[in-house]
C-alpha cells in the first residue's frame, strides 16, 4: 500500500486564526490537486507560535460546532489533514494540540506532553501539559503524532511504537539557533539526527513537518523531512521557504525492513516494565511527573 503525503511547510500570521485558516484551505486544495492522501501542517499552524497572552483569544475546540474546525472537517472529505492549534478543553485549560482529521471526522487529538520552559521557551507558563501519547488507526494504518519537544524526549516515540504506530507524524514550530560553520543551524542538525535515529531504531516512517517565517527575532527554519524504516531520507523541504513537499510512502517497506531487522519483534516490553517499576519505586528516584 502506498500513501502520498503533502508536507505543508508554511509561515503563519501571529494570532490571526482566520488568516491562517484561509492558508490551510488553500494548501489543502493544492495537496488534493496533487493527489495527496494526507496533508500535514506544523505545530500551532492555525495560530503562530509565540502566543503568550494571546493564548485564550485563539483557542478552539476540535468539533463540528467550532467554526474553524467546521471548515477544516469539511475540507477533510477527500484528504486526511493534521492541523496544529490551541485547544481549550471543557474546563478552560489550554493545550498545544494537533488534530488528525479524516472523512469529516476528528480521528485523534494529541496534546503536547512536553512543554519546554527554559532558554527562549516559555510554554509551561501559558499551556497545560497533555497527559497521553497514544497511537491511532487511520485508513493508511496505525500512526502516532507528537509535537516538537515531545520527540526531543525518547519516551513518547517509544510509547507510540509499542502502541502500534508505524508512521510517526512529528510537528514543529522550531526556532532556529546555534549558528556555526555548518551549513545548517545546530537545531536543524539535531532534529534531523534524532528523526533519522527514530526511523532506524523503530524501523518506522518518521515524518517531520516544521514551519518557516519569523516572529520578532525568532526564525523558524523549515527543512521538513521524511525518513523510511531504514533511516533513509525520502524527502527534504528547503530551508526557510514556504513549500508543499510531496512524498510517497510505500508502506510495504515496513515489511521489507522488519523481515531483515526484527527489532520490533524482539523488543522486551515486559523487561522494560519490570525495570521501570523497579527504578520508579526506588528511594530517591529522579522521576517526577
Amino acid at each position, binding site marked *: 500500500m502506498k500513501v502520498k503525503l503533502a508536507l505543508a511547510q508554511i509561515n503563519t500570521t501571529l494570532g*490571526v486564526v482566520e488568516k491562517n485558516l484561509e492558508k490551510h484551505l488553500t494548501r489543502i486544495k493544492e495537496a488534493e490537486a496533487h493527489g495527496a492522501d494526507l496533508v500535514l501542517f506544523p505545530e500551532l499552524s492555525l495560530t503562530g507560535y509565540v502566543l*503568550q*497572552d494571546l493564548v485564550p483569544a485563539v483557542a478552539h475546540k476540535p468539533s463540528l460546532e467550532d467554526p474553524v474546525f467546521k471548515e477544516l472537517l469539511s475540507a477533510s472529505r477527500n484528504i486526511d489533514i493534521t492541523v496544529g492549534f490551541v485547544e481549550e478543553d471543557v474546563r478552560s485549560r489550554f493545550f498545544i494540540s494537533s488534530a488528525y482529521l479524516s472523512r469529516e471526522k476528528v480521528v485523534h487529538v494529541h496534546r503536547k506532553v512536553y512543554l519546554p520552559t527554559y532558554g527562549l521557551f516559555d510554554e509551561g507558563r501559558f499551556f497545560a501539559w497533555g497527559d497521553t501519547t497514544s497511537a491511532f488507526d487511520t485508513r493508511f494504518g496505525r500512526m502516532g503524532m507528537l509535537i516538537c519537544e515531545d520527540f526531543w524526549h525518547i519516551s513518547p516515540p517509544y510509547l507510540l511504537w509499542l502502541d502500534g504506530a508505524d508512521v510517526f507524524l512529528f510537528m514543529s514550530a522550531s526556532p532556529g539557533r546555534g549558528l*556555526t560553520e*555548518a551549513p545548517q543551524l545546530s537545531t536543524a542538525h539535531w532534529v534531523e539526527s534524532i528523526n533519522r535515529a527514530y526511523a532506524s531504531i523503530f524501523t518506522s516512517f518518521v515524518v517531520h513537518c516544521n514551519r518557516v517565517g519569523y516572529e520578532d527575532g525568532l526564525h523558524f527554519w523549515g527543512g521538513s523531512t521524511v525518513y523510511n524504516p531504514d533511516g533513509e531520507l525520502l524527502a527534504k523541504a528547503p530551508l*526557510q521557504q514556504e513549500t508543499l513537499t510531496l512524498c510517497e510512502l510505500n508502506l510495504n517497506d515496513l515489511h521489507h525492513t522488519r523481515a531483515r531487522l526484527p527489532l520490533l519483534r524482539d523488543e522486551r516490553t515486559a523487561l522494560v516494565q519490570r525495570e521501570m517499576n523497579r527504578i520508579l519505586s526506588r528511594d530517591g528516584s529522579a522521576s517526577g511527573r
Partner: protein
Amino acid sequence: MSDLTINTDLARSILTGFIHSETTRAGFSKAVLGLSGGIDSALSCYLAAEALGGENVLAVRMPYKTSSQESLDHAQLVIDATGVQSMTIPITEMADGLINKFPDMNSLRKGNIMARCRMITLYDQSVAFNGLVVGTGNKTEILLGYTTLFGDSACAFNPIGDLYKTQVRQLSHALCIPEVIVSKAPTADLWAGQTDEGELGFTYADVDKLLYLYVDERYTPEECVEAGFERKFVETVVARVRRFHFKRVMPPIAKLSNRTVGYDFLYLRDWGT
C-alpha cells in the same frame, strides 16, 4: 574552545529574511540607517539593501565637525556599492546648540549628545522616507554596554545584534564589503585618533572569545580564568556586562495593578502580523 566561525551564507539568508519580514509585516517597504563609515553600519546597509532593494534604503551620513573625512569617504564606498539612496545631514549645528552652553563639558557628554542628535535625525528621516530605522549595533558592544542609550542603540529592529564583532568581520568579508572598511580600527570618531579598543582597554578579538565562553557557553568567571583568560580581564568584562545591563532592557515600571506592561501584559511585537 571559542570557535566563533559562522556559516556566512546561512547568516546572510536568515538576516536578510529577518529584515524583509520585520519591515513588511509592520506595513513598510523601506528602511533608514545611519552610515558612519565603520564596519557595523556598512554590514547593516549591505544586508538591508539586499533584503529590500537599494532604492528602498536610505543611508544617512551625519558628520559632526570633528568627524574625519575618511569616515565620510568610507560611507560613500558603501553607498556606491549597494546602490542605496543617501543623504548627508551634518549634526554640528544641532549638537553645538547644547554643547556650547556648557564650556566645561566632557567628551562623554559630547559623545552622548552626538549619538542622540543622530538618533533624532534618523527618526525624522524615518517619517520623511516612510522607512523603519535599522539597528547597527553588534553583540559585543551590546554586551559591553559600549553604546549610548536612546542614541546609537535606538532602532526598530537590529539584524546584527547577535553577531560578535569578530563575526561581523567574517560576514563583512563574505559580502565583499571594501577591505579598507573591514580592516580599519573601529572608532566612534569623536576625536582624532580615538579607537574603541584604545578606550575599552582590550581588543575585540580577545573579548569576543571571552564573551563567547561566558555568555554563549555559560562558563563561570572562574572557568573562564581556568580556560586561560587573565583574571583581571575576566573581572573587568564580567563587571561591564552586569553594570550596563540597564541599557539592554526596557525601563522597569512600578507594578500596582493586576496587569502591568512588562510583567504580565505579554505580546510579541509581531502580534497580529
